């Protein structure tokens, strides 16, 4: 059986999209905008690289600003999307046909964005390899109790398993593109990436095992790595950070954020690539409900935050109160409103199946989690213990450029992904279409 004869109408539509000659002016315009934002990112990273972290608004007691807020935020997208994709693979859930490929891609691109921050925030980013335990002439190992080394392991493991999950799932589709490529050199590029896939039964059997092994790896690692990010705060003695509930808070809100991003990307792809047949109403329906459930869980964790503040010691209480009543209270309140109240529109079927409902919820939950990370990192710190620490934190333009720039990087990577590889798994679509016919 060749791939060609097996390609069904839906699958052919997706494959042809990746092989199309042009991709339209809108795609080019979007790529140009995100390219400009990448330019901004290079500029702001360069400023921090050359001038040092003094170009940021961070200062005692606000030792961490946009660098760590954005890091925790991007890694949340990556964690949520990876966790979701891995569970779908392991459960062989029907939803995986529609969403797995771009959920995995979302996770991978978010890891790329997140990975920039721990490096640039070192202050001397060119010495980042010092966190890696290599046999140095200093005869010192990195400080394994330092969160900097935890970051290194979390990010590198994350990048490894996420790219593996994405790539292993992609191999049969690269072979399909190889067989359908219009030009010889494109066929050779796809052929090289397909690693000699020949659609044999043996290949499929190995593929299933490999895909599921990687998915099994993702599950515990995601929980560990998201907890690692939380421990970076929890292992300090800062009131409001020094909390055992923090890993759960990060995992849960990260899951809501990842799911909301997947929902957002699904709505965009469905509309722009006319994929209503593949990402069908049932898929959007289910995805919408999942986001709703995850946002309710995140809401529960927000309430738990308030409760644990109330029950804790006076110092912790003061830090918590500061978050909800101090200068940065709007961030804490916005986090709750945007993460919990806005997704409630998903109770309506029409909102789940439409275009603007998922887009609104996707943006809203992501903004909410960003506000939550801001509130956590900045909001509770304002009450210093010395009179000289009475200042407030405001990001500099350079820091704002980091956020905008990584958004541009993410968008550009997703645009290139949608351009050059099938946005949904062709073989799963073929399988579904085959089952429908028989």
């Amino acid at each position, binding site marked *: 059986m060749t791939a060609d004869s097996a390609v069904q109408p839906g699958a052919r539509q997706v494959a042809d999209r990746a092989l199309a000659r042009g991709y339209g002016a809108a795609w080019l315009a979007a790529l140009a905008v995100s390219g400009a934002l990448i330019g901004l990112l290079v500029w702001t990273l360069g400023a921090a690289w050359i001038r040092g972290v003094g170009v940021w608004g961070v200062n005692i007691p606000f030792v961490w600003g946009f660098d760590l807020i954005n890091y925790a935020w991007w890694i949340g997208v990556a964690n949520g999307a990876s966790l979701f994709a891995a569970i779908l693979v392991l459960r062989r859930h029907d939803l995986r046909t529609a969403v797995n490929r771009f959920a995995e891609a979302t996770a991978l691109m978010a890891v790329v964005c997140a990975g920039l921050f721990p490096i640039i925030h070192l202050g001397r980013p060119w010495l980042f390899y010092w966190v890696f335990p290599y046999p*140095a*002439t*200093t*005869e010192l190992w990195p400080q394994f109790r330092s969160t900097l080394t935890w970051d290194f392991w979390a990010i590198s493991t994350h990048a490894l398993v996420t790219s593996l999950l994405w790539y292993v799932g992609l191999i049969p589709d690269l072979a399909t593109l190889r067989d359908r490529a219009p030009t010889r050199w494109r066929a050779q590029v796809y052929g*090289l990436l397909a690693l*000699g896939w020949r659609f044999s039964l043996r290949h499929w059997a190995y593929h299933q095992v490999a895909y599921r092994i990687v998915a099994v790896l993702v599950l515990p690692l995601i929980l560990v790595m998201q907890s690692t990010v939380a421990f970076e705060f929890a292992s300090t003695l800062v009131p409001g950070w020094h909390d055992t509930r923090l890993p759960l808070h990060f995992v849960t809100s990260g899951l809501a954020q990842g799911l909301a991003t997947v929902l957002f990307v699904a709505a965009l792809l469905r509309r722009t690539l006319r994929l209503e047949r593949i990402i069908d109403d049932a898929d959007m329906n289910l995805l919408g409900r999942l986001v709703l459930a995850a946002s309710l869980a995140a809401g529960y964790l927000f309430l738990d935050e308030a409760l644990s503040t109330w029950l804790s010691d006076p110092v912790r209480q003061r830090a918590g109160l500061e978050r909800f009543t101090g200068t940065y209270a709007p961030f804490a309140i916005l986090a709750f409103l945007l993460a919990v109240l806005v997704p409630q529109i998903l109770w309506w079927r029409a909102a789940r199946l439409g275009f603007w409902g998922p887009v609104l919820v996707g943006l809203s939950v992501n903004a909410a989690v960003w506000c939550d990370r801001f509130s956590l990192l900045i909001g509770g710190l304002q009450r210093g213990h010395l009179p000289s620490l009475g200042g407030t934190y405001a990001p500099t333009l350079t820091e704002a450029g980091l956020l905008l720039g990584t958004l541009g990087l993410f968008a550009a990577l997703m645009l290139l992904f949608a351009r050059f590889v099938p946005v949904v798994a062709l073989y799963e679509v073929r399988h579904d279409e085959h089952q429908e016919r028989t």
Partner: protein
Amino acid sequence: MAPLFTRRATTRFRVSLALLVMGAAAVAALVFVWSRSDAAWRVGAPAPQPIPFQHSLHAGALGVECRFCHATVERAADAGMPSTGTCLTCHSQIWTGASVLEPLRTAAALGLPVVWSSTHRLPSHVYFHHGAHVAKGIGCATCHGPVETMAETAKAETLSMGWCLGCHRDAHPAGMARADTASAAVPGRLPAPTQPLSPLADCNTCHR
């Protein structure tokens, strides 16, 4: 249609993957060896000097004591370089017409020091005190090697952080006595410490 890849493409692909891995391992091994080599640390590489000063003649053949020129080595962080006047203690009497000493006479006439090139550069993030080391019984030769045999002065050890830690992690008196043979000849050397030393391998012992 011609096949996409030749019959040998798979073999080539696998071989290049293997070569890539081996290449990476080879680069890592190369960096490991090179970063520990004398060349990387300029061990044994003399610097160009304004005057062809010979430690082998002064400290070796003539037996001038180290502290005669490096006068602050027992008291200060810096061992001290001889002033023009120190050189002229003798050279106002001997070799007064030697052309190689012209920079010395020029410096003396202008009231400036002779601009020697450093062979031992201390990084700015390291705090090193010569006096502390001499007081604890570390002789000059432990770090600077057999200077009295050097016609051209050069580094004898890497002076890498790992090399410093070699003693700082194992600073018992016997270890120092073993490492230090030339210092026994230095008069006025203090007896080796008998008490356990302060935690010498702490970061802030050297990085303050």
